[in-house]
């Protein structure tokens, strides 16, 4: 039985983390990670985990095309590099083929993640890290595949006030991208602020969380939406 099967509505973040740590896991799957960050006020993509081609096609139709399929596993922390992501699947045939593709990779998967396809030109990153002197710290910056090359990020020590969050958003060099941009509306900063405050509080409340990457956080219709997320767990239990 895979972890998401026991993910019931009433299961709390605390229980989910505890179970994962007790099982000696180093990270949560993308699906689990999104449940955790959603509880901390970060808007996430609509998605579900499936275990058969049939289920994949049904769920994709229910969600509405196009969709994205990703191999789902807590040990799979770099899905794109592993070729475990299929995007812009427009119909049932696309989905069926992609499902077979992913399952045939020879990677140990607990299922396949079906996700709404999010379109937007602006990609940001939100993260959590633990500093040896200052404890949990929140990061905000330019996301996407160039994150580490651009290094356009700002940090704050948790807990963050709303003012802290607003200030760090304005601190990145590319802060202009938060305004209306090439026909897209300005980013809803209140949503970003709540997300940053929420991630800081999450880090303070849960020692079991070592690090978090939410990247990319894509802006669509002015609303930021977490498209990928990774929660790294504390080691050495």
């Amino acid at each position: 039985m895979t972890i998401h099967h026991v993910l019931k509505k009433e299961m709390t973040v605390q229980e989910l983390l505890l179970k994962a740590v007790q099982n000696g896991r180093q990270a949560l799957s993308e699906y689990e990670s999104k449940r955790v960050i959603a509880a901390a006020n970060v808007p996430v993509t609509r998605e579900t985990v499936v275990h058969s081609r049939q289920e994949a096609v049904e769920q994709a139709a229910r969600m509405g095309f196009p969709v994205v399929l990703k191999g789902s596993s807590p040990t799979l922390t770099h899905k794109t590099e592993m070729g475990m992501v299929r995007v812009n699947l427009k119909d049932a045939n696309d989905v069926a083929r992609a499902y077979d593709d992913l399952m045939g990779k020879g990677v140990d998967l607990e299922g396949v993640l079906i996700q709404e396809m999010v379109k937007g030109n602006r990609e940001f990153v939100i993260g959590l890290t633990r500093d040896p002197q200052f404890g949990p710290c929140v990061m905000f910056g330019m996301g996407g595949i160039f994150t580490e090359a651009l290094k356009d990020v700002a940090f704050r020590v948790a807990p963050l006030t709303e003012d802290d969050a607003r200030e760090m958003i304005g601190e990145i060099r590319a802060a202009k991208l938060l305004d209306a941009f090439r026909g897209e509306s300005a980013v809803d900063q209140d949503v970003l602020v709540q997300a940053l405050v929420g991630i800081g509080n999450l880090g303070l409340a849960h020692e079991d969380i070592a690090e978090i990457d939410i990247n990319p956080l894509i802006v669509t219709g002015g609303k930021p939406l977490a498209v990928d997320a990774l929660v790294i767990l504390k080691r050495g239990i």
Partner: protein
Amino acid sequence: MERFFDPKSVVVVGASNTAFNLGATICNMLKDYLSYTGAVYAVNSKGEVVNGCPGYSSVLELPQAPDLAIIIVAARNVPGIIHDCAQKGIKRIIIESAGFSEGGETGEAMQCEMDDVARKNGIRIMGPNCLGTLSTRNKFCSFYGVNPSLVEMNQVFESPGTMSYIIQSGGVAVLVMESLYYDLIGINKVVSIGNKCDVDEADLIDYFQSDATEVIGIYLENIADGRKLMEAAARSRKPVLIYKVGKTKEGAMAAMSHTAGMANNDSIFDAACRQAGIIRLQSIDELHSLPKIFTEMPRLKGKRIAAFTNSGAFGSIAADLLVQAGLQMARLAPQTQERLKKAGQVFNIKNPVDIGPALPQTYLDIFEILLSADEVDGLLPLLSVWQTFVIDCLHELLKMCKHYDKPAAIYTPNAIAKSIAIRAKHKIPIFETSEQAVRALSVSHTYYASLRRRNLLYDAMLQDDADNRPIAEVVS
């Protein structure tokens, strides 16, 4: 904490008559130079008297439990002495000896043992590997090896001031104390905290809230407890200026996330300073060059600066510097420009205001016009002292700044040695370069903004208890 700075009696453990004995330098300074009136005891293996300080071979033999023990012996002997101090009932100890946590595993084990004894006996320890305390008002100093006959050191005690330093390096302590002697502000207290096994910078920030200190300057090589430091700084109602060097140890494990990969100690310390209202300094020199903007001038409450010069060149330099520092050139209102026009001999009535060879009254009029203008938050006078009357005008400016509750960061484009001499003789807060003056305005504003914000900072509690929030199924 007071007993560390103003003990009524002291024992120097390790003071003897051996040549080059460091403990003896402490006895000599207290007795000969500071005319310390409390009892000073010396403890050494022979139990010999040191410069008139009664000698004993053990702490246990002292006729009383002194307020403070200063220990300066080989590290391996320190734990035993701590035990003796505990037994004797001594509650404050400065350990000047080195060779503990900075000196490998056995040193670290000794430090742990001492911490344990101290905790159990309610003893507070400063150090190890430090110089301890200096308090000008109490004429007390635990520093070893100081030669008080040096003119600067003498002066430090003769004119107590309002600047207090917490410094993790003896050399930097000497540098800032000597430098302040050629500046305006006197020293209140200096403390060298070394490895800070117990008393740390956060404890001292709290302590400096209730004494004559006006500005707290800190030099750090490492931070023991970042959150404790942030909390103490956020509580502080006096400016806290920190210059920090060195990178801390990376986490034991390699980072797995991109976030942890991009986090570095420097950017996080920067964020911590901003959140706690700490002024992060860019150089050691700022420890002594910047405090006068806090002690001598009102706070800069907005960002709009009027520059005023009697040499056009410095006006345009100032404009660039102000913008780089995140401040603004004030846009002078028509009525302000009108008033400037009437002041006479003004070449440029827009900011930067530029005058030619003018009479003293013109300087005073311009100070008044600019400081009283609603669109001006602070002044940057760049005034060459080409006539001695300029000095008198600057004296008047100080009074006007107090009256209008707006600061001026004065720079005199003269030889630095001349500017320093004028500053010392006439007690005018002159900055040595235009960069320094602009930086002073910038930190004054940063501090003011942080005071306003900090009332909110620690109200940020865990608003939502994520523990008890059920996870919503996203796909229904």
